[in-house]
């Protein structure tokens, strides 16, 4: 009886768990077949998600960076929102083009910022590649033979895959053979991504099943 009292939605916490379970099973009902129960909860989810985002958007951004400064007398921030609202003309056939002024602002800023990204993100990787020792010398006495072999494998793989991705000219002869090998090497990277993707998706499902077993049914889960 104790277990039953703890199981049933007799207090707010348990009611919350039961609501979560209903939501979960409603979404999972699509796996059996299309049904109105699923559609209802799907639309509920979209509405809640869209509505939720307005809170942080308004309080953490609009209020903090626009309303609050204006309330403190910083009048020079006033134009930001009125001109930012040009974005909402995108749905208007006649005036839709004015939204591209603000979109252009965002795109221009992103483009201008990319130079720093290129310098900080890609050049260190080039540096790291070029710095890999390919033989043991006095300059790197701690290097071991297995490390050297690994570095050679690294460089060969990198160059082969880069050859595969070079589309500026037609692949012929030796270049075509290298590109084919590069494509095989690329499959290794994709296989690693596939394996990790499977793990990720399984983990998300396991999280839900854990919720059903542990939070709802109260069964000890996961190796005791």
């Amino acid at each position, binding site marked *: 009886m104790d277990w039953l009292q703890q199981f049933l939605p007799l207090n707010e916490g348990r009611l919350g768990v039961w609501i979560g379970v209903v939501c979960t099973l409603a979404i999972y009902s699509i796996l059996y077949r299309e049904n109105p129960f699923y559609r209802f909860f799907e639309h509920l989810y979209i509405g809640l998600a869209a509505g939720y985002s307005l809170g942080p*958007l308004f309080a*953490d951004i609009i209020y903090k960076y626009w309303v609050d400064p204006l309330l403190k007398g910083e009048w020079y921030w006033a134009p930001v929102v009125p001109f930012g609202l040009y974005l909402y003309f995108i749905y208007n056939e006649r005036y839709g083009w004015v939204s591209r002024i603000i979109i252009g602002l965002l795109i221009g800023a992103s483009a201008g910022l990319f130079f*720093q990204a290129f310098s900080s993100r890609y050049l260190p*990787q080039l*540096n790291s590649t070029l710095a890999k020792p390919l033989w043991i010398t006095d300059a790197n006495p701690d290097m071991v033979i297995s490390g050297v072999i690994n570095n050679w494998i690294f460089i060969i793989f990198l160059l082969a895959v880069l050859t595969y991705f070079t589309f500026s000219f037609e692949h012929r002869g030796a270049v075509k053979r290298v590109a084919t090998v590069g494509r095989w090497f690329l499959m290794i990277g994709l296989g690693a991504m596939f394996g*990790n993707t499977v793990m990720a998706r399984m*983990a*998300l*499902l396991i999280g839900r099943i854990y919720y059903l077993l542990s939070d709802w049914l109260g069964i000890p*889960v996961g190796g005791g």
Partner: protein
Amino acid sequence: MQTERKSFWDRLLTIDRRWLYLALFVNIVVFLLLPLRLPAVVSGPVRKFYNAMERLQPGDMVMVSSNWSASTIAENQPQLEAVLRHLMRKKVRFTIMSVEAQARDLSLRLAQRLAKEYGYEYGRDWAHFGFYTDLIVAIKGMTNDLHDTVKQDVKGTPTRELPVLQGIQSLKDYKMVIDVTPSGTVPDWISYRPKNLIVLYCPTSVMAAEAYTFLDSGQIEGMLTGAKGAQEYEQLLGVVGLGTRFINGIQFSHVLIILTILVGNLALLMKRLAQEA
């Protein structure tokens, strides 16, 4: 006219997918309930992650960039929980920020729950900076002037009045940033951070394979790969968290998938051989 009887392999290849869904569901339930706990072999990236965290000193400042929503809660929550436990255990100051709307509340609630366990006080030991739409300009702004960029924490307190930010002028005064994310935010941290800021990465497993190039170049110092990475990290910390509880389900679902792929290919092969015969 006689209808051809379908062979076993034909029927297997055209099995209703709902039986497959049920098989996966049952597999996970069975192995989650299994009272078995295999020790993790701690991988290199997790070991480096742990070592980087261990080098932090009490009073050091760390930025936790928590950008996950409930859609990846099963992978990112164990990671964030383990990371925050380690930070609090080491008496490190930290601030949290989010570029995903839900992440704001999810990380705030999680940190508040753990803070009670470790006696951490909001404002004195940790703070939450709230939600930002644009991570890149936020990083650039915080690198130049943190207080003018952030202005106030999630509770509306001006950052200059927060004791936890004493002596902090910008991101240059932080030791480390830990990015817990299901999306491609770590390249932004790598690209725009101050040069001395160490980057640690907690991606979902989907994003992990792409990050090995950053690990190789040293742009990321350590990485926890999804719930599996959280399990290894929990083992190093000596705690039993969600990563440890999920791992049975993860590894035996992998076995099921591998067997399924092999059976699917075998069925096709047998069907072809039968047709040729």
